[in-house]
């Protein structure tokens, strides 16, 4: 965005909004990392940190909503500004939800840390890394208005889904082997499912970025009878 708004206070409001969204994004990325470390490092202090971080995310969500409403009411934004603000209002919902999922992961990790580990954790940290990377990429795409990067996120989701299926099948074998494994395997399954869901939220973010930049909505192409080829 080369040209700036003639009205500097409007420009400042938009910048503040962008910064709040980025701060929120950075927080949730950190939450994902911490929640999975709570599992892999069996660190009992980390879940509390994830929850504390989630409170900050919740506060940011409300601040972003307030700021968007203020801008809509006072500035009647148009064109790319309008798309940015309506996108911001939706992005916060996904970001906040990712934060909640990270809290759920941390809670499951806390449960798991009460018992001996079921197995060596390899795939779960990988899935977490992938989910976190998807979120980061979607946020980078948002900041830079980079639709190519957003499309990378859309394509990247298949890898998460594949790994999730692999983890699911493996955990099933643990459960079938010994019913005493079920509780822990189920907790691990929940964590994997939450990570897979985080990946889906990253896809939502990427779709919104594409709308924000191009002004065309690519969501639910099939439902709307549209041809959409990647």
């Amino acid at each position, binding site marked *: 965005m080369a*040209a*700036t*708004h*003639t*009205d500097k206070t*409007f420009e400042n409001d938009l910048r503040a909004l962008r910064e709040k969204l980025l701060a929120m994004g950075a927080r949730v990325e950190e939450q994902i990392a911490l929640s999975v470390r709570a599992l892999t490092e069996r660190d009992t202090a980390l879940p509390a940190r994830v929850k504390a971080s989630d409170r900050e995310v919740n506060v940011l969500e409300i601040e972003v909503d307030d700021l968007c409403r203020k801008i809509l009411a006072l500035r*009647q*934004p*148009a*064109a*790319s*500004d*309008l*798309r940015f603000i309506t996108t911001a209002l939706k992005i916060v919902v996904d970001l906040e939800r990712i934060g909640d999922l990270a809290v759920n992961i941390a809670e499951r990790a806390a449960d798991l840390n009460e018992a001996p580990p079921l197995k060596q954790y390899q795939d779960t940290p990988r899935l977490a890394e992938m989910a976190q990377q998807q979120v980061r990429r979607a946020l980078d795409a948002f900041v830079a208005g980079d639709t190519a990067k957003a499309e990378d996120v859309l394509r990247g989701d298949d890898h998460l889904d594949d790994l999730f299926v692999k983890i699911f099948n493996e955990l099933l074998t643990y459960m079938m082997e010994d019913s005493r494994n079920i509780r822990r395997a189920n907790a691990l399954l929940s964590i994997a499912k939450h990570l897979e869901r985080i990946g889906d939220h990253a896809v939502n973010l990427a779709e919104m970025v594409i709308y924000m930049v191009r*002004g*065309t909505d690519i969501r639910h192409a099939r439902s709307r009878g549209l041809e959409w080829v990647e």
Partner: protein
Amino acid sequence: MTPAQNSRAKMEARRLAIRYGQKLAIRDINLTIPEHQVTALIGPSGCGKSTFLRSLNRMNELIPHTSHDGEVLLDGHSIHERGLDVVDLRRRVGMVFQRSNPFPKSIFENVAYGLRVGGMRDKQDIADRVERSLRNAALWDEVKDRLSESALGMSGGQQQRVCIARALAVEPEVLLMDEPASALDPIATAKIEELIHELKSRYTIAIVTHNMQQAARVSDVTAFFYMGELVEVGATEQIFTNPREKRTEDYVTGKFG
């Protein structure tokens, strides 16, 4: 879905250029004014939007040393045709100005003025037409008991609606509005905008406005002028959510100095 697609062209400018003396005010304008739709002309001061509006009923020719190139069509016929009656053109393509300019006469006579000038003599015919025009201008109920009072004693919003009624009385086909609500308070403005919505089923409307929210609210089609050129024209929703041209984007988002 562009509104212009499902409506025929009421007026059409083709390669229109207007000069005031040596100065080129607008150039190479190709723009269709679709029938029974509201077309908003937006752009910064001096962009040529008012010049374009006035060229649609040759009102700009009242300014000395005005000349034009290209053509303007009304129902497919050039409005510059030799022998064309300019007074009749201005009856068919009426105009409402920024400053409401009622004559220092009664409300009734203000609306009847164009009819008398046009040669209408029958009192009942005139009275009927005045009533219908005031009704169409959403003013009848407010003034029906004081038709003989001076129009100058009315509020600004009422005066503007009297001027609209005066324009409607001669049964135009196209209504040109130059900043019709810029001097009005928000309630009077809302009444004018509501009126524009009602009028478009019977008339074709082109409106110049500096108020972009107003253009967004009242129009079906928006044309953005800049430095004498038509930069972009499209469905109003498209212009305000996803303009194609960078200059339009900068203008509607307030990025012009």
